C-alpha cells in the first residue's frame, strides 16, 4: 500500500522537482519565451534585465552554494562570485534555454573551488551550527541542524550532486553536464550520498510517505 502510494508520488515528485528550480521564481524546467527574452536582454547588457535575473536567481544560487560549502559567509561570497562570473561570461551562453543549468554549473564549480581553497588553507571544519547565527536561527528546527550535520559528513562532490538533484530536480543527464562527469558517476554518487544520509539521519518518519 505504502509502496503503491510512493510510486504514484514519484511522478509528482519529479514534476515538482522539474518545476520548482528557480526557487524564488519557479523557472527551472519551466522557462518560457518571456524568460528567454529576459536572459537575452541581460546578455546584451540591459541593466534592468541583469537586475531581474539576479533577483530571481539569487535564492537558487545561494542554496546551491550553501549546500556545498556549508558556511553562510562562504555561501554568500560564492553567490556574489557566481553572478559576477555570469555577468562577465554571458557571451559564452549560446542557448538561453540552458541558462539554469549553465548558471548551476558556474555556482557549483565556484562552490567546489571555495571548499578546496578552504581545505588548502586548513581552516576549521564546516561549522554546521554557524547557520544558527542567522537572523531566524530561533526558528530553525533540530531536524535542519541534523541535516546540516549529515550533509557535512559527505564529500563536497557528493553534496553537490545531492543538492542539485534534491532541491532543483535536474535529471541525471543534466547533472552529468553540470558536474562534467558521466551519468553513471551521477547515479553512483547520488546513491552513495543518499545511503550515507539515510544512515546519518537515521530518522525514518512514521508511516513513510505522507
Amino acid at each position, binding site marked *: 500500500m*505504502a509502496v503503491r502510494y510512493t510510486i504514484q508520488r514519484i511522478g509528482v515528485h519529479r514534476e515538482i522537482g522539474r518545476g520548482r528550480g528557480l526557487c524564488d521564481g519557479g523557472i527551472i524546467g519551466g522557462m518560457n519565451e518571456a524568460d528567454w527574452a529576459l536572459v537575452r536582454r541581460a546578455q546584451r547588457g540591459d541593466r534592468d534585465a541583469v537586475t531581474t535575473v*539576479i533577483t530571481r536567481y539569487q535564492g537558487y544560487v545561494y542554496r546551491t552554494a550553501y549546500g556545498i560549502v556549508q558556511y553562510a559567509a562562504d555561501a554568500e561570497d560564492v553567490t556574489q562570485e557566481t553572478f*559576477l562570473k555570469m555577468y562577465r561570461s554571458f557571451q559564452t551562453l549560446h542557448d538561453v534555454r540552458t541558462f539554469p543549468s549553465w548558471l548551476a554549473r558556474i555556482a557549483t564549480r565556484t562552490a567546489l573551488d571555495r571548499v578546496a581553497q578552504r581545505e588548502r588553507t586548513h581552516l576549521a571544519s564546516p561549522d554546521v551550527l554557524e547557520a544558527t547565527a542567522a537572523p531566524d536561527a530561533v526558528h530553525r528546527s533540530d531536524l535542519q541542524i*541534523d541535516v546540516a550535520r549529515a550533509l557535512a559528513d559527505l564529500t563536497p562532490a557528493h553534496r553537490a550532486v545531492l543538492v542539485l*538533484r534534491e532541491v532543483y530536480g535536474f535529471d*541525471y543527464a543534466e547533472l552529468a553536464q553540470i558536474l562534467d562527469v558521466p551519468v553513471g558517476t551521477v547515479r553512483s554518487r547520488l546513491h552513495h550520498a543518499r545511503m550515507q*544520509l*539515510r544512515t546519518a539521519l537515521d530518522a525514518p518518519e512514521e508511516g513513510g510517505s505522507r
Partner: protein
Amino acid sequence: MRCHDIEAQLSAYLDAELDRETHAAITAHLNRCPQCQATFLTLEAAARQVRAALDALPMPPGLEAGILAQVFNESPDARPSATRWVALGALVTVAGLLGIAPITIVGWSTVRLLLGLTWHSIAFVPGLLGGVGTLAAIVAAAGGGLGALLLVGRLGPHGDGRPSYEP
C-alpha cells in the same frame, strides 16, 4: 533480483531514472519485501529532509544589494568580449597577409642575386613564389582565426584557463 541488487538501484528508482522493466521489477519486489520497502522509505524520507532543510534556509540580509553592487561596479572594460578576441584574430590575420608580400619580394630578389638568374630563364619562378605566397596567406588566415578561437576557449569566462560554461 535479490535485495542487494534492489538496494543498489533504489536511488535511481526514486528519481524515476530506470527503464520501465527494471522499474516495474523493483516495484514488484518492494511490494513483497518489507525490508527493502523500509530501506526505500527511509531513503525517500532522507531526501525529503534535505529538501525541506534547504528550502527553509534563510537568505542573508543584503545579499542582493551586495551582488548588484559587485556586478555593476564591474568596469565594462574588464568584461572579456568575444568581439575583442575576434578583432585580435583579424589583426593577426591582416598582419600575416601584409607580411607575405615583402617576404616574397625580398626572398625572390635574394635568390635572383645569389644565383645570377635572369628574368627570361626563370620566368616560372615568380609563379612558383606566388603560389607559395598564396599558400602562406591561407595558412596565416587560418592561424589567425584559430588563434582567436583558442584564446576565447582558453581564457573562457573566468580568464583563468577554464573552458566555457556552455553545457
